[in-house]
């Protein structure tokens, strides 16, 4: 296959970026999209040019590192796959393909197609955990049965890979799908239930502090999420959050520390 790639190049966080054209040839349809970029990069290196920087690691759709905005869609064409799972057989000879980084205020560009997603870690630090220490004398794992339906739903929410495609897909750059997935996972399990409300409050506060936008129920996040995280989770988050906000007015302050601003 012969293709034309139009790729976002940006030397550093403060540099001005631009789209640059790269013709590529000899692309086989068995290649993954990232392998196609490998081929291009080796060519650039031999020509004395700078290779294109992009994040990737597992190359099997689970680590959440890869993050390309391809032809206007996070992770490119195809549903429920990540960029690294995208194969060239989805394209045809002569195609022009646009490749950009995630675009969001909370995800500043580091270089070319690489962005800084550490805001997600800070949201997690604000409450994305069950407050339990390592302990060799815990109750037996089977002491508390969990209805299968709840366990399955918790699992579905927990499959989020933290890639940020939901943010990139959203016109408001909202991180609600990501945050709601974590809040839901724990809220659905008895082990996480006790802190569910504070967790929702603290994670949402941190999300706002990181300058993610508001959720206006557009639903693009769900469509572009490689892990099929459902909008139901956002509804659950809203319930937890409203419940928490109400009880916060009534009761004592929430006993959580908060990480500092980004």
């Amino acid at each position, binding site marked *: 296959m012969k293709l034309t790639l139009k790729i976002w190049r940006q030397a550093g966080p403060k540099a001005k970026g631009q789209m640059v054209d790269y013709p590529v040839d000899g692309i086989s349809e*068995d290649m993954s999209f990232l392998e196609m970029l490998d081929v291009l990069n*080796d060519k650039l290196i031999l020509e004395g040019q700078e290779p294109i920087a992009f994040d990737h*690691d597992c190359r099997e759709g689970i680590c959440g590192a890869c993050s390309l905005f391809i032809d206007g869609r996070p992770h490119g064409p195809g549903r429920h*796959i990540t960029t690294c799972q995208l194969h060239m057989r989805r394209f045809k000879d002569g195609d022009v393909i646009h490749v950009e980084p995630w675009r969001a205020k909370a995800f500043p560009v580091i270089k070319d197609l690489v962005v800084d997603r550490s805001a997600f*870690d800070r949201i997690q630090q604000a409450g994305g955990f*069950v407050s339990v220490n390592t302990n060799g004398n*815990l109750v037996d794992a089977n002491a508390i049965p969990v209805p299968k339906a709840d*366990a399955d739903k918790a699992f579905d929410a*927990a499959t989020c890979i933290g890639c940020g495609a939901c943010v990139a897909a959203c016109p408001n750059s909202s991180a609600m799908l990501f945050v709601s997935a974590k809040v839901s996972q724990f809220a659905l399990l008895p082990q996480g239930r006790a802190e569910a409300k504070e967790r929702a409050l603290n994670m949402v506060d941190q999300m706002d502090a990181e300058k993610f936008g508001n959720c206006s129920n557009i639903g693009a996040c769900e469509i572009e999420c490689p892990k099929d995280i459902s909008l139901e989770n956002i509804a659950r988050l809203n319930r937890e959050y409203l419940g928490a906000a109400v009880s916060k007015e009534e009761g004592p302050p929430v006993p959580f520390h908060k990480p500092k601003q980004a």
Partner: protein
Amino acid sequence: MSTLDSKVPDGPLDKQWAHHKEHLRLVNPANKRRIDIIVVGTGLAGASAAASLAEMGYNVKSFCYQDSARRAHSIAAQGGINAAKNYPNDGDSIYRLFYDTLKGGDYRSRESNTWRLAEVSANIIDQCVSQGVPFARDYGGLLDNRSFGGALVSRTFYARGQTGQQLLLGAYSALMRQVGKGKVKMYDRHEMLDLVLVDGKARGIIARNLVTGQIERHGAHAVLLCTGGYGNVFFLSTNAMGSNVTAAWKAHKRGAYMANPCYTQIHPTCIPVSGDHQSKLTLMSESLRNDGRIWVPKKKEDAVAIQQGKKKGSDIAEDDRDYYLERRYPSFGNLVPRDVASRAAKERCDAGFGVNKTGEAVYLDFGSAFERYGKMEANVHHIENPSKEKILELGKQVVSAKYGNLFDMYENIVGENPYEHPMKIYPAVHYTMGGLWVDYNLQSTIPGMYVLGEANFSDHGANRLGASALMQGLADGYFVIPYTIADQLAGEIRTGPIKTDTSEFDEAEKHVRDRIEQLLNTKGTEPVDHFHKRLGKAMWEYCGMTRTAAGLQKGIEEIRKIREDFWKNVRVPGKADEFNQELEKAGRVADFLELGELMCKDALHRNESCGGHFREEYQTEEGEALRDDNNFAYVGAWEWKGDPGTAELHKEALTFTVLQLSQRSYK
């Protein structure tokens, strides 16, 4: 040759750990605040260790090369995690898990460590559940178990096909909680490039900030390496692209012994190589072998026709199929251990029976499973005299419910529907049993440096059983290191903060800078991948699934040539003080080029076959691995002497008090 002190406690196996814990020194809570610990790696081993140590009150600095701790390669583990809980009441026990692990490792692991691993395994499940890890459950709401990798009991806990992800996110959440509390300082997008020793003790590391390129010094009272396996020395493996040996190798060059580096696990069920562009290989979970049957054609002409694209698997009549695992190992059949299954596939393909265009693939066929499950479903739904098509349809639904995500993954990569055509699989490098030598306390031969998880030479001997690496990583991090490290740190409460403006740090930093300069200034003619691919080919050819003395010697020569060529002709673009992914890769490949030689050297010296190490000269008449317990029942630990070729061997004798050594048999 010196001997190594494993510090294994006295007494009967089942009492050793409890007794040992009770006699280790402790650090009082107020003093823990005065102690700094560096944890390199945020996989299961590193994240669990960092979180646990921070909870105890130590100051922890945590490092990973990814942009977030959550992306460590543990995330990719699919199948499950073992624990001797005996929930299904099928007779499992600590002893049985111990026995299976030791036997599965072909009697090349340290008995006491293996026992301890089995002993703490049950705690891991309790810990993870309390953290909110959503394991699979049955309709009664209790945890579900499955049998995995040929175990005779169901002791594997799982979270659909994403167990590693769920366990890692559990450990990551514990880690993030401590970061939020300020007890852990997180350094992501940082790569450790050297270990710093002061007066013979590990006192810090040199790390490169991968965003800015800045070289940083970090001091601590102890350093933990939890940096994962080095399977990427083969270029193609199921590891992540960034998985590397660099941290471990730098420590090796500073005095940590490298143990059993040649023990490599080649996983039988991976998607075959499709072409030269291939950058990594994808594992198809071992659980598929529970229902899939592995075969190649009986007749050479059928195989050739398939290779040429003139025939398909479905064209081959039942009688013309060779279910070679069932034929050779009637009692374990398709569920023989990984090393045995992998070699059997290679044997058939080498003999010309492979089933894709490269001749390096075998079928994993669910035809029988479709039929079996289809009939069961028809019964359940009271469908009388179901048609063949109906049975097939029902059966496919059952298989899809069990393995749907794996089937989708396969189709996505290969572009062929595995419900219609049998899957094609081939063995691929997956896990490295070898690693830095550690004693019972997980301390390396460098005082103050500990090694956890896949990076150490581990509890798995010459072959690891499925679902046991996750168990080991979390055992090391949650339940072993928090106790054993205190013994050394108890002596550090008056040391005070480790200064980094010393000559030792100067020297290490200079060393790192010089190497980076050298890589950038070579300005050769080939990109890094070119050398990595050549190294991978040589390793696969000479130090892969089967090995010979002559081949290994050739391998060593070849690797030396590639290494020389690399330092003359590599081209690394860009600068040192910027985000530079090629520079990262170059440093890693440079280390692999040294490690590869040591692996061959280790494989060459071990004149026996055991587990993942198969020397063609040492096999039984039926082609099974032939151990030599009289001469090789030891851990081979190599000391760096300036060059991989001159490494010096040290031995730790392995003694077995509970089990009789026996030939593994899966017939």
